[in-house]
């Protein structure tokens, strides 16, 4: 979906004009129409997965709900139906990834959302988890700010917002625009420059200095974050202008003190989905309970930790498969899994060491050390993903930590980056500084938008003008650039 196209911007603004004059039912129907139009406009092949998944899931929930929950037949039927639909949906998802003639736009997002909805529907005997109206169910799946790259919003939270007519609220509306502007700034000003740096480094990996490689790796790491989070900012902003809240997907992940925390702050809704629909069901399942029982003989801690380890392993298998099928994705997933499992298993020993060394866990320097350690581990994971082979990985790592760190090389120059002068470097550094300050403020719980609301209009507007003109003057758009491309678009 091209979020900077006239089609998108025009439909959004036109939708806004209509939305607030409609009643509750027509409000969501108008958003369904907008979502449908945008989905159809931006897919270039038939949306077969969307059609089949929505029909199958809706049909399955109708059948499940028609059963008497108290009977044994219900338990039997509902699980069989649920599992068949889940397997069929996942099968469709895998098939769509390997064929060109089926649309890939947002497949994994709405498929997992549909699976989550189906599981909840079967799990809870509560009307809040069940949708009778097929159109609303489709609307939930293809709501345009969430359809192509998430977040994995939950049905119940989504439905609640449409229980009555959404009234226009100036503050929320303006926050939406501000958020969209901020996302656009990240996407057009910061992301492309980081991408250019990272790509050039990894295209010229042989003979390059360790320092350049490390900078490239750092650029790629921040690039992934900027690309994905800029989309989230834009879409949360767009949704806010309609008065609809969708969940946050990022919470300053580079301030995480451990890898587990990093993944609780990065693509948060995906992590929560895997936890709710893989990890917890697994631990509570017959197999999970058996593992727990058998682990008891190794102590109380083991009975708590070993099922968690097994669940983590399953979650990471799923996470790596969600990101892609292939050796590098598998290794990448197992790398994170190993770190999280090790930190789980060695938690008590770490605590003891910290006590012996009298390290205050809350001290600033220790926090900074942990943040840096997490960043390095994340960069290493990205190196695994970016390396075409083990030899490439070993070579790159050798350069970064070896004696070739500061060798003179001419492979990375401003000219080769296409950055005629130092201008792009200055723009990138200044933008990153601004971004860092904003992140620190957010991390400290400072509500920037609320503070901005309290400022006098001239100052507030000046901030908008600066962002608008920075985007216009230093953004990468027009011929030769494709701002519609987001890394996670076809996941």
């Amino acid at each position, binding site marked *: 979906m091209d979020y900077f*196209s*006239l089609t998108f911007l025009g439909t959004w603004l036109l939708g806004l004009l209509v939305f607030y004059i409609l009643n509750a039912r027509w409000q969501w129907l108008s958003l369904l129409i907008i979502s449908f139009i945008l989905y159809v406009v931006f897919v270039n092949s038939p949306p077969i997965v969307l059609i089949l998944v929505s029909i199958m899931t809706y049909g399955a929930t109708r059948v499940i709900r028609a059963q008497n929950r108290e009977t044994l037949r219900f338990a039997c039927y509902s699980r069989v139906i649920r599992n068949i639909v889940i397997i069929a949906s996942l099968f469709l998802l895998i098939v769509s990834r390997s064929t060109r003639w089926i649309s890939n736009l947002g497949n994994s997002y709405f498929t997992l959302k549909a699976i989550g909805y189906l599981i909840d529907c079967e799990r809870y005997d509560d009307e809040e988890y069940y949708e009778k109206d097929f159109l609303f169910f489709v609307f939930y799946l293809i709501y345009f700010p969430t359809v192509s790259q998430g977040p994995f919003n939950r049905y119940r939270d989504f439905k609640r917002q449409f229980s009555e007519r959404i009234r226009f609220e*100036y503050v929320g509306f303006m926050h939406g625009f501000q958020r969209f502007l901020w996302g656009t700034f990240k996407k057009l000003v910061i992301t492309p420059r980081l991408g250019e740096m990272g790509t050039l480094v990894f295209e010229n990996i042989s003979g390059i200095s360790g320092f350049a490689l490390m900078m490239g790796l750092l650029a790629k790491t921040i690039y992934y974050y900027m690309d994905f989070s800029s989309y989230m900012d834009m879409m949360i902003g767009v949704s806010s202008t309609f008065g609809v809240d969708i969940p946050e997907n990022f919470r300053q992940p580079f301030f995480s003190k451990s890898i587990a925390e990093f993944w609780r702050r990065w693509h948060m809704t995906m992590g929560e989905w895997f936890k709710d629909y893989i990890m917890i069901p697994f631990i509570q399942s017959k197999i999970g309970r058996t593992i727990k029982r058998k682990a008891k003989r190794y102590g109380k801690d083991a009975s708590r930790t070993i099922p968690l380890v097994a669940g983590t392993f399953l979650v990471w298998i799923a996470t790596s498969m969600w990101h892609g099928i292939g050796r590098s994705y598998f290794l990448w997933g197992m790398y994170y899994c190993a770190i999280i499992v090790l930190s789980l298993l060695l938690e008590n020993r770490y605590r003891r060491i910290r006590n012996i060394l009298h390290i205050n866990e809350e001290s600033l320097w220790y926090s900074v050390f942990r943040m840096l350690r997490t960043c390095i581990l994340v960069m290493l994971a990205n190196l695994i993903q970016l390396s075409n082979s083990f030899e490439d990985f070993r070579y790159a790592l050798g350069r970064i930590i070896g004696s070739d760190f500061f060798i003179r090389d001419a492979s990375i120059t401003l000219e080769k980056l296409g950055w005629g*002068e130092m*201008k792009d470097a200055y723009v990138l550094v200044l933008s990153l500084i601004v971004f860092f300050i904003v992140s620190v403020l957010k991390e400290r719980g400072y509500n920037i938008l609320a503070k901005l609301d309290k400022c006098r*209009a001239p100052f507030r*507007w000046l901030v*908008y*003008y600066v962002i*608008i*003109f920075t985007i*216009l*003057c*230093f*953004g990468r*758009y*027009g*011929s030769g650039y494709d701002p519609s491309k987001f890394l996670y678009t076809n996941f």
Partner: protein
Amino acid sequence: MKSFKNSLKILVFCIGLFVSYKLVGLAVIDTDSSTRLKFHDYYQQNNIDIAVIGASRVNRGFDPDEVDRHMEVNSFNFGSSSQTYAGSYYILRDLLNRQDVETVILDVEFSGFNREPDQQKANWIISDYMKGLIKYQYIFNVFDRSDWLIMLSGICRYKDDISINWCKRNIKAKLCKEYWDYMPTNRVYKNYSTYRDRGMCEIEKVNKGSDFFVYKKDYGGFDHIGLDEENADMMGYLYKAIRLCKERDIKVVLVTFPETDFYLKHAGDYAKFVDRVNRISVENEIPWYDLNRVKDECFSDNEFSNLDHLTRDGARHCTSVICDLLLNPHSHEFVDEPLKKDSGIIGVTYETEEIDNAVQISWNVEAYNTMKYRYRLIEYDDKQVIFDSGILDTNSIIMSELTNDAYIEIFDMTNNYLGKGKLL
């Protein structure tokens, strides 16, 4: 009351945005003297009889003063750098909406057929300075949606050029009174191209101190030449321009402006070009005057400021030939072969390459025939001979051996001095 207040707020915000846009534009939007002055001059005219439209060769090669002298009519030069036929067509439409033009001269050049119609910088003359709705028709019809913002907004158009020096220069230029008075010479903006009158621009001679043309190979002047990949959209606009004139009973003439022999030799298959333009001329029943093939009207190398653009003197010469042909189509004969001479030096091409922290320079001396010439490479100040050769061939030398300007001197085999060319 509250909604009135909010509406007022939105209005003030929009005014602020507009004012900020103008302020940022002062620093960011180019002050290009010639195209800005050209369009300002054009809108001051009210009786254009002859309009000549095309790329930079027209811009520098057609002198309206000369037309006045020969024909006593008012003419205007609409040439601009790399102008595409799409641009020419929309300029023509604007012109015909405003003026009763008698004759339109359309430039057909060797390098024009395979360009993309939506080359942005080539057409900024329209997006920056044209008035009225035709400009918007041009932008929306010719350009892809993704380029609309760039074409509509000056700030977006010049965003890639932004630097501190760029902004300083623009602000300085715009603070001069001459800028707002549309004076041809702005104290700050010193372009190598100088605006003269009624659209005509003049450029200084590039190869000063050289008796023949010396060109660096990666100059890029020949990159876009080739008729094999003719752009159908581009040609469509040429046909549309011709048709538009014919519908309004306006005389249309195709003219190819002269180029140096050096250019013609490198440009490709000229016979193919002649064949192609002849077809256009016959299909549309309009004359074509190829000034590269006018018998007895050779344009000497001295009349060119560079590879393919005329000097002011060259422009006068060229315009007088065009006037002759407009007054009497049989006043000049045309030959088949564009090259003007059969002996002597055409020029020197050279290229540089970085080798182990040194720069190697390679050059090639080209002559009209296969006769032998002697040439030598000298350093200018002390006339120290660095290289001496009895044959014309490609040779090279490591640059670090050179400390001053280097010239190539050429002699015939009886040691008669033929001329020199400045290599670096």
